[in-house]
Every structure is written in C-alpha cells, then in structure tokens.
C-alpha cells in the first residue's frame, strides 16, 4: 500500500479490516462516528457485515453474538456509549468471547464536550464492568499506530479469548497524518485456535491443555452452552466453589503469564536519564515534544510511551524508574494511569501534569514540570 493522508478513525477502520474484522455493530457518536461510516461502506465490499443497532448496549451484544458465530467483531464508541456497553463487556470477559471495543475518548463526564479530547476513560476501561476480570487495553498516539494497534487488538482478542479495548482519543481519532501503509502480506493475523477433539469430547472451557481453550463457533457441529453465570468446563452453570475459583485464577493467569507478548511500549534515552516522562495516547505527542525541548537545553530525559495500558506495564515502569528520582506523568485527565505509576514507583518521585478542560496537555507544561526537577 502507498503512503496516504489518513485520519485516525479511518486508520482504525482500515486496521480492523486488515486484522480480519468481518462484523461491526455500532451507534453513532462523536468522535467515533467515522469508524462506523467507513465500515458501513467497506465491510460489505469484503463480504463482511455492518449493522447500526438501536443503542450501544445492543451494539455490544450483537458483537458478542457475531463473535460466537465465528466472525471477528468490533464496535466503536465514545464515553457515553462506552458506559452503556459495560455490562456486556463483562459478559464477553466472563464467557471469554473475543471482541474489540474502540473507545475514542472525549471529555466527560456525561455528555461533557463531544468534540474535545480526553483520557478520562482509562480506569473505566479497566474496571468499568462489575466484578474481577482481566482486560487488555491499548492506546495509540498516532494515525499509523492506530492502524497497527487495531490489528493487534484483534490478534490479542483471538489469542487470549478476551475483549480488547482500543482506547483512542479525539485528537488521535480526528487527526490526519501522512502514513506509510503496511503491505497486506506483512500484516500478521492471529486466527482463532481450532480444536482437535471431536464434538462429543469438546468442552469450551476445558483448561487441561491451555489456559486459553479453543472456542469453536456456533453452527459447526459442536453444540455447547455459553452463559454469564459462573460455569464449569462445559459452559454449564456451576455452584462448585472450586470451579468458580479455578475460572477466576485461569482467566487472570492467561493474561498474566503472557505479559511479555501483551505489554507494548517504546522507550528512548532511559539508560542515562535523570528524569523519566511516561505518557500514552495523544499526550505522548506533547510529552515527546517536551522531552526533545528539554534535551536541547541539556537535560537527560528518558521517555517511555505505553501502548498497552492494561494490563499495566508494572515491570517496565519499575525497571525504567528504578534509578531515577523524578518521573513525570502527563495525562488528559485528573490523574488516572498515574495511580498505577505511583503504585510501582515511590509516590514522592512521581509528578503529575493534568488537564481536564478539553485541551491537550501542552508541551510547555510538561517541559516546565521536567525543568522544575532538574534545576
């Protein structure tokens, strides 16, 4: 594919297609509407299906239904819709149904400011649905990264049989950049693992071979049950406490044992740094700008850009910050992911830079926070 001027939302839609998405259900909402509009046009071209549902609850439900039917499925929304999707996201986590949920974050709470960016849904992405469950959330900071991480979101969802959340923000979603598109043959796609056992032996939650049991789609001769109730290895409701505990242990283990695959990040100049800046999403752009300015002025500044937000990159952050006295964490919220940074780095080392008026965190503000530590 050649280079193209492309919008973040468009990159998300194209990334979805490249990742194998063949079903989309959604409901219009700024700043995510473009993703639905593009897929309404593009999906049928490749034999996929698009449906505009009556609300986001239904959209999330239809995505799960399509996924159990065997299609790689996605929805895209923003804060108000993301809130409505939470119960069914929990269902996907409980029943271990692969799916991708895109949240192009806008300023909240409530209707907030639809056209303004925010990173206010970081904690909601982690804990928005009730009950303990693992989740994967990725956050892109450029148009090209949006495309790549959308493919990655599908791959993770299929590999780990889990809902994956792509946390975009209005800046990345609406921004246009010139992107070199990857060649189709270079894109790595993960397909749903197939079972080797005959239907009469198949158990959709049987974990003796792997913590991620193969999920056979409905309609292929393997008849089984799926429920949001706690269930046994056949998917049938259970009251056995040891089975309930085993489920919980396994679904966390399947993610926790694969962190080296799941945790995506980029780092720069950390080895000899005095100050470390940790950022993600659109704010990583401001942060990188500030880091470069500070370096021009002689500062030794390390930069860590997190692409995987959940599970939190504990070890990466711990390692990067181990030697340092100052860690600056800018966010377009009142301090959400910084809570995780503070958990793994001594709290008095961590300095927040926040903004919640719907404007991006300015590089100047991050620079000021950096310089305050080195002067």
């Amino acid at each position, binding site marked *: 594919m050649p280079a193209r001027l492309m919008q973040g939302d468009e990159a998300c839609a194209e990334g979805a297609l490249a990742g194998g998405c*063949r*079903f989309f*259900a959604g409901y219009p909402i700024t700043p995510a509407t473009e993703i639905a509009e593009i897929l309404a*046009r593009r999906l*049928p*071209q490749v*034999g996929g*299906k698009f*449906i505009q*549902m*009556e*609300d986001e*609850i*239904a*959209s999330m*439900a*239809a*995505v*799960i*239904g*399509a*996924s*159990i*039917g*065997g*299609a790689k*499925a996605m929805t895209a929304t923003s804060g108000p819709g993301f809130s409505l999707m939470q*119960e*069914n996201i929990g*269902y996907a986590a409980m029943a271990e149904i692969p799916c991708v949920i895109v949240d192009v974050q806008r300023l909240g709470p409530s209707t907030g400011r639809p056209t303004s960016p925010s990173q206010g849904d970081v904690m909601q992405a982690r804990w928005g649905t009730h009950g303990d469950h693992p989740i994967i959330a990725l956050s892109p900071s450029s148009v090209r990264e949006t495309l790549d991480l959308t493919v990655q979101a599908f791959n993770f969802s299929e590999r780990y049989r889990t809902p994956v959340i792509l946390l975009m923000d209005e800046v990345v979603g609406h921004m246009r950049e010139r992107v070199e598109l990857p060649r189709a043959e270079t894109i790595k796609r993960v397909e749903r693992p197939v079972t080797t056992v005959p239907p009469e032996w198949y158990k959709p939650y049987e974990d003796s071979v792997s913590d991620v049991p193969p999920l056979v*789609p*409905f*309609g*292929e*001769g393997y*008849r*089984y*049950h*799926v*429920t*949001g*109730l706690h269930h046994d290895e*056949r998917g*049938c*409701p259970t009251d056995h406490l040891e089975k309930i505990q085993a489920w919980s242990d396994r679904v966390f283990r399947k993610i926790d044992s694969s962190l080296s695959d799941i945790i995506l990040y980029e780092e720069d100049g950390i080895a000899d740094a005095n100050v470390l800046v940790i950022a993600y999403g659109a704010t990583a752009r401001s942060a990188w700008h500030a880091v470069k300015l500070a370096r021009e002025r002689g500062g030794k500044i390390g930069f860590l850009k997190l692409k995987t937000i959940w599970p939190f990159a504990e070890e990466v952050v711990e390692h990067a910050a181990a030697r340092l006295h100052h860690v600056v964490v800018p966010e377009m919220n009142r301090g959400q992911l910084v809570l995780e940074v503070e958990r793994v780095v001594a709290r008095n080392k961590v300095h927040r830079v926040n903004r919640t008026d719907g404007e991006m965190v300015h590089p100047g503000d991050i620079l000021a926070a950096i310089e305050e530590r080195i002067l």
Partner: protein
Amino acid sequence: MRAQRTESRVHGRYLRHSKEFPNIWCAGCGIGIVLAAIIRAVDGLQLDKNEVAMLSGIGCTGRMPVYVDFNTMHTTHGRALAFATGLKMVRPEMKVLVVMGDGDALAIGGNHFIHAARRNIGLTAIVVNNATYGMTGGQSSPTTPTGVRTATAPYGHIEQPFPVAELAVTAGAAFVARSTVFHVRELEQYLSQAISKEGFAVVEVMSYCHTTLGRLNRWGTPAEMMRRLRDDSLTLKRAESLSEAEKQGKIVRGVFVDRDLPEYTQLYERVIERAQAERV
C-alpha cells in the same frame, strides 16, 4: 399413554443428559411446557440440531437453553435479541430461537424487541408471559394487569400492560401468534409456523407464576391457574364477533399476522452484492 411415551422419547433426544437435571423451575411451572413444545416443533420440522441456536436473557425463562442440546447461549438481561441479531447476521442459515420472559423481552429489552421486529430479522422470539418477574420474586412487569398485587405494587398495580402480540404486529414482525401453556397442541403448531417463517416471528405464550404472583393474589394452584388460561381465553375468530366489553380481561389466542416481508439478513446479502459491484 403410548403417545405420551413417544413424546418423552422425542424430548429425550433433545435434552442435555448430564448434570443439568433436575431443572431449576418450581414444580408446576409453565416454562417446562413451553420448552417441551419448542422441542416437538423443532422435531416436527426435522431441523438439524447443529443448525439450531437457542438464546435467552435472564430470568426463569432465561434458564431454558442450558437444558437443550442446541447451540445455546444465556446472555444478559433483556439483550438476547441483540446478541441473536449478531449471530444471525454472520450465520444466516441458522435457525435462531430466542426465549425471553415478559420483563426480559419488554421492560429492559423492550427497545431491542421493537427494533428486531422493525428490521424483520429472521429470529424466532418466544415470550413466556407470566405477567411478572418470576425469578426476582413477583415484582411488576410490563405485562402485569392493572389492579394486580405484585411485590413492588403492594397496593395494586396502577399501570396498564403491554399487549405483546399486538405490539409486535405494529412494530413490523412478519409472524405473530399468541397461545397459552394450556393449549399445547395449538402452541406447538404456532411455534412450528414461527420457526419456519423467514422473518421476525413472535410467539407470545401466556403462562403463570404460581409461587410469586399467584400466591400474592391468591390465585391458587398451578392446576387452577391452568384452568383460568382455558376458561379466560378465546380464539381470534371468536373474539371478532364479540364487543370490546365482552373481550375485556380475556386472552385472545391465534395468529395475529403472517405476512411476507423482506428478511433483514437476506436484504443484507443484496447490500454485499451492491457494494462489490460498485467496487469493480
């Protein structure tokens, strides 16, 4: 007696013979009758079990799918039709049955119900209408008759009920019928017609919940409530000759609509053709 034995053999071929039994329903509940009628309808149509999916929401009715040997999914409260919409779109060849309680289908799921009907997507929606929330203990539902006592209307229900079948007709369903758990042959017949229908098909099955609403209103045993379904119901044909006053409080049974409307997933195949034609 012989007929009964053959029937239980039919049921036996479709039930999951494992730890699922005994079922969770109260002895005497009508939900099992609906399950048995669905099984006989599917058997009569000679459908391949692999090609049948049964989805449900949450409630006593929602527990039905786990007992049958189809592709089964117990979803979230009210959302079964939306889950089923996604499944049907990617597996249009499957027969997708959706079983719901009245609260599931018409309160929390009311929006999905009317939109599935409006789209005319090829699902079979089976609403077990016991006029209350059975599972949570007899609270008011969207089909609770005015004046009835419920766990959340201790002084009598002051709202009016939804007529489910009529609502489905207005919302655009291709096939709509109503029967009761007393009229099992008729019920089986309507279910068979509904499952055969290409578009969105609704069967409203009048049932009862003797342990909650029945007890609160002193309606008696399941047998007495069955008798009421028999005595207080009449056919659509007979209802046509009665005045509104005479029909008051009666359950009207019959096929309310059976019309040919374009089915959604088939229309979508046309969308795919158009999109691919425009592209080349």
